[in-house]
């Protein structure tokens, strides 16, 4: 029986039940959903306060804040689901500017008719990810939209973190001769999603790399290496991330295609769909720009962490007023690695 709403004698039917419009009305059904489904799983002292906003202790330093909407389809995919993805995505956005992530807020837009069992699964996954990362979800909101107006569930997470003044990283600090490091094999999240979406049976073995990176990043900072820029290459992949950094810093880059870590199944799925792994999304990788003399030290620190075992130097920074990212192909030629145009659409023949 519900604690705050004794009028609700019957508990939520987590097996057969579905979201209906009353769950978004703000009335008892909403309260029951929040309490029995969300608070019970995400539970922590701050969320348990039951107020409109969480009041939180704040360590010294500068406040860092980030927000990210998650609209992935399918909601469940090999290696993860929208729940853990929503936690990892925002934690990573905080971590790559150098912050220690502290708290998360989560907003759910639920579609009428969405199975409560799926919602429970998603929230459980979120809770597990938040708990593993040590970053609690301290406040949240749910809204319900009519059937056909959403795609099951959308989750927006907002994160707050803290960074010591002067310790933050920014995309405009890459300098000529710096080295470019990626923390592991690329393109796994995007291809896991594509393989599900397009029913590519042969690519079923590809799992998303979704992971919270703040542990790896803390180890990278602890190495003492002069890290100039850190970024998580999500949408648009490593290519897009490097183009952003090149533009922000006003430098050019030269990648070595043969140094790019790509798992064979990802390469095969990309080949099949006419995609380029450089442009495919990652959710558990970080790209670092580091001073040349510190590259080896940073690489060693990354490889010592479970999320950085496959870390590799993939290129270097040079002077270029046009901010081109180029690549020496494994074939020995040279080409531009340009911004992603539109969606990465497969070629037909």
């Amino acid at each position, binding site marked *: 029986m519900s604690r705050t709403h004794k009028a609700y004698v019957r508990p939520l039917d987590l097996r057969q039940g579905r979201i209906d419009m009353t769950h978004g009305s703000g009335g008892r059904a909403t309260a029951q959903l929040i309490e029995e489904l969300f608070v019970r799983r995400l539970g922590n002292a701050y969320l348990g306060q039951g107020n409109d906003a969480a009041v939180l202790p704040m360590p010294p330093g500068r406040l860092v804040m980030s927000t990210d909407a998650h609209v992935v389809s399918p909601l469940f995919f090999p290696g993860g689901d929208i729940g853990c993805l929503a936690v990892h995505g925002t934690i990573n956005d905080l971590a790559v500017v150098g912050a220690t992530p502290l708290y998360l807020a989560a907003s759910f837009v639920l579609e009428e008719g969405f199975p409560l069992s799926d919602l429970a699964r998603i929230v459980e996954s979120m809770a597990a990810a938040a708990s593993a990362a040590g970053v609690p979800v301290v406040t949240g909101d749910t809204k319900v939209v009519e059937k056909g107006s959403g795609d099951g569930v959308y989750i927006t997470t907002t994160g707050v973190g803290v960074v010591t003044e002067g310790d933050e990283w920014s995309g405009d600090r890459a300098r000529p001769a710096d080295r470019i490091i990626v923390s592991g094999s690329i393109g796994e999240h995007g291809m896991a999603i594509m393989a599900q979406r*397009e029913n590519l049976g042969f690519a079923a073995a590809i799992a998303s790399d979704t992971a919270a990176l703040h542990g790896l990043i803390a180890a990278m900072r602890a190495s003492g290496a002069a890290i100039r820029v850190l970024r998580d290459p999500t949408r648009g992949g490593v290519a897009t991330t490097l183009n952003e950094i090149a533009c922000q810093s006003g430098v050019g880059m030269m990648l070595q295609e*043969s140094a790019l870590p790509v798992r*064979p199944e990802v*390469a*095969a799925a990309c*080949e099949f*769909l006419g995609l380029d792994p450089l442009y495919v999304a990652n959710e558990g990788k970080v790209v670092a720009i580091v001073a040349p003399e510190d590259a080896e030290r940073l690489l060693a620190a990354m490889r010592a962490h479970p999320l950085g075992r496959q870390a590799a130097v993939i290129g270097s920074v040079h002077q270029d007023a*046009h901010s*081109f990212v*180029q690549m*020496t*192909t*494994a*074939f*020995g*030629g*040279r*080409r*531009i690695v*340009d911004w992603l*145009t*539109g969606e990465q*659409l*497969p*070629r*037909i*023949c």
Partner: protein
Amino acid sequence: MRFIDEFRDGELASGLAAAIRRVVRRDREYRFMEFCGGHTHTISRYGLSDLLPHQVRMIHGPGCPVCVLPIGRIDMAIRLVRDAGVMLCSYGDPMRVPASGGLSLLKAKAGPGRASGSDIRMIYSAADALLVARQNPQRQVVLLAIGFETTTPPTALVIKQAQALGLGNFSVLCCHVLTPPAIASILDSPEVRQGGSVGIDGLVGPAHVSTIIGTQPYEFVAEQYRKPVVVAGFEPLDVMQAILMLIEQVNAGRALVENQFSRAVTREGNRKAQNLMAEVFELRRSFAWRGLGDLPFSALRIRREFAEFDAERRFAIRYEAVADHPACECGAILRGVKRPSQCRLFASVCTPENPVGSCMVSSEGACAAHYSFGRFADLERVS
């Protein structure tokens, strides 16, 4: 990846590059057209130009199905969605091709009217379109079928399957075109004919198209036009080897059709696929190609026996010609008369984000390939 990495081997490539340098005569230029967009993409993506001596110039041909699709054909597809309320299935590439009125399939998809029935879906194969039709029996589903001989047999197959299933809600907007007439049109164009402004010393023949039609249909190029043809696979080593074979033919004064892609292509091609095409399609009297103009007997339409699956007949729509942007040089670029960087719109008004001409749309298009993979070379030339 087995059977793929072998064809992308950097060491073998430098060996081939050395062989090419050895056979190239210093006193002449070699101008080869790679007909196929797939080859254009390979050349750009692997940076092959960097491996070739400066005497060898590759001219990017019109073999990109999206690039030769005239505006009026995309307009027809959009009219089907907007006026006839059909569900349109399209491959990814045509989605961004600019149509009239600032539209494209992608913009029509996002624009007003979607809720009232406009529905455009991206598919990966013709079979997907058939599936969409079966899953939506209450809707008319039209496949926007584009492409050269490679994608034509699958279209023929789904039309036959639809007939066998008695599907009343499936039809095809057929825009399939043929390779040999396009090659002939380029070799006949005043710029290319003897004494014209563009010389072509040989052709890299299509890869996938040739698996269907074989090498025989190119023999007229060697016999009538005295140009060597080497049919080549799409992997970078294939292209390098084909270029070497072309140079050797030119040096020896030979003009033959040679087959570098013998692991997949025969002289006769795929008879089964050819029969399937012949059963379902017939030649159009004329078809408007973007950049090449109206070419007689250069495209296919659906035979009368399958008329009910012909969207042009079912919805009684006609092709209306629409003029290209006056400054767009796609036509000249497709014929090899101009390079992308010689177009005033290139990289200023016309970019992959905002394509004016179709060559900027597909990654196989000469302009998009040059923009995305090679435009640093233009800047280096200037600076």
